[in-house]
């Protein structure tokens, strides 16, 4: 078990190197000369050459990569020339918005997706099973940005129950004092009812849309595993022993469905990060996805590189966590 854990943890190191290499290469081939941008439109060729030298752009690629890595270790992610601030500061400021949306969406996907998969399997060919299968094929085919727009059209324009898609708080609401950066949590801590209501109101629709976009694979997996588990001998034994229905389904059977679900969480997280970008774009959510899209539009290399790096690193650690939890939960892996 310790061997498995150690190998898995150590494997992260080369992967992280690979990740930094990719993000470095991305900026290396990015069109546009950063020195030119930094020197400004009135710069003379000498000035630009001087700027290139100072930024180290005249060095060989390997030297530049080494400087990039050294910078990363010091927490230097470069500067954004659109906001004029260090990228790290920009990211730190925006991560809570993305985190809040991601967590809420994950909660939606788990709370709706798992029970739906269970019920679909238990009442096979019932109407909820049909719903779940429709969702399984239809849900994954719907582009997330389109689902978002559709939700906005229905709930904002037609029904008027959703707020306008303009960020995390309605205009005129003072944000709660900063503790975690998650507005719902912060306003709860500060006992500011109006801020809490507004934050929740703004969060509901994007979270539902993002959650819906990743729910289908979860439901499908739970349903398939549940069907298999319900056929197994130990479940038949549990029925035969006269255990209550609830105990058998939600205790014994569901617990055994959780292992494939855990392994799926890494993939789900990847989809969540991708979905985040478009959902943030649709709802003008001030997270890192929106930041990256804005940077890409203005060819601002620092934020683009750092965004891809940030998501890559987080993804590597999420997958590590998934594998470790999997190792802890599934004794077959542990003993190997």
């Amino acid at each position, binding site marked *: 078990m310790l061997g498995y854990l150690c190998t898995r943890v150590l494997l992260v190191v*080369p*992967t992280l190197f*690979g*990740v930094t*290499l*990719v*993000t470095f290469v*991305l*900026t290396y*081939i*990015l*069109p546009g000369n950063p020195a030119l941008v930094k020197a400004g439109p009135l710069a003379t060729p000498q000035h630009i050459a001087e700027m290139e030298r100072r930024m180290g752009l005249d060095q060989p690629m390997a030297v530049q990569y080494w400087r990039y890595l050294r910078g990363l270790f010091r927490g230097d992610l470069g500067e954004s020339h659109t906001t004029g601030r260090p990228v790290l500061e920009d990211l730190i400021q925006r991560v809570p918005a993305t985190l809040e949306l991601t967590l809420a969406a994950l909660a939606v996907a788990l709370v709706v997706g798992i029970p739906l998969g269970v019920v679909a399997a238990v009442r096979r060919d019932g109407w909820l099973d049909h719903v779940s299968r429709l969702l399984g*094929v*239809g849900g*994954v*085919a*719907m*582009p*997330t*940005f*389109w689902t978002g*727009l*559709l939700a*906005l*059209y229905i709930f*904002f*324009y037609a029904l008027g129950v959703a707020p*306008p898609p303009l960020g995390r708080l309605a205009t005129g609401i003072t944000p709660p004092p900063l503790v975690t950066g998650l507005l719902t949590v912060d306003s709860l801590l500060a006992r500011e009812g109006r801020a809490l209501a507004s934050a929740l109101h703004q969060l509901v629709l994007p979270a539902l849309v993002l959650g819906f976009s990743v729910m289908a694979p979860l439901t499908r997996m739970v349903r*398939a595993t549940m069907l298999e588990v319900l056929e197994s001998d130990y479940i038949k034994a549990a029925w035969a022993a006269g255990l209550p229905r609830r105990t058998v389904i939600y205790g014994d059977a569901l617990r055994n469905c959780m292992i494939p679900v855990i392994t799926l969480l890494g993939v789900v*997280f*990847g*989809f969540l*990060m*991708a979905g985040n*970008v*478009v959902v943030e*774009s*649709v709802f003008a959510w001030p997270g890192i996805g929106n930041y*990256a*899209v804005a940077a*890409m*539009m203005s*060819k601002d290399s620092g934020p*683009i*590189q750092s*965004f*891809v790096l940030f*998501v*890559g690193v987080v*993804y*590597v650690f999420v997958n590590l966590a998934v594998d470790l939890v999997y190792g802890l939960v599934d004794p077959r892996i542990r003993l190997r």
Partner: protein
Amino acid sequence: MSTLVSVSADEAPARRSAAALLWRRLSRNVMSLAALGLLVVVALTAAAAPVIMPYDPDAPDAERTLEPPSRRHWLGTDLYGRDQLTRIVYAGRVDLLVALEATAVALSLGAALGAVSGYRGGWIDQVLMRIIDTIQAFPSFILAMGIAAALGNRLTNIVIAIAITHVPIYARLIRGEMLRIREMEYAEAARTVGNPRRRIIFYHLLPNCFPPVVVQATLAMGFAILTVAALSYIGLGIRPPTSEWGAMTAEGAGYIVSGEWWIFLFPGLAIMATVLSFNLLGDALRDVLDPRMKGV
């Protein structure tokens, strides 16, 4: 010599019956038949768009801007009075072509990498698989975004971005198949008679890895279309005025507050219908070609 002849003679009916079986299964399933039909319609209308569509996708009509669906314009018109249906049909050319090219590139590259990796093993396998790992260390859409941003908004670059992120799908699949097949008797036979390694890998073994690959490629086509559309939606893919489903949806986003629903709705429906068809077709193919995965 006689054995060679008998092998190919045995093979032919097996192939024919597989195709027949495929068609029989597909035609029995209403959903997959509908999916296949829809894809054929989308592809044909896209190909024949200049002949069959009565409007020019890029010609503005100042008299008829933002018109809701009518008998004249079945799916309405956009801000410039362009016919939405015409634009959606034309957009099918871009989306299908990008997805097809990206899948073809990813498949060839992935197949070559996976085959060599799986057959050779050892350090070559290690190196190639670490490269694949690195690509997979990123959520694929995020990496595609980064590559598209780095290379710039050109059609070829979008194809490259999607192809790179799809290479691992095929490389891993083929590597796994290769590991299984290389120990089989006919592989041993091919080695024994002294075939060069390249010939063994690419001529004798690789074709036998293809059934699961066909399934994956069909499913990946849908995913590629979603990726092109999403890249274009956020402004990193195909740019207006070229008609493309994601870009068209993005143009419609601004009209939600004023209630012009047809501008964002129909391009999105086109994406959904096409992706859904690829997924249904992929599932049906899986049932036929890869019975181990049936019902999953």
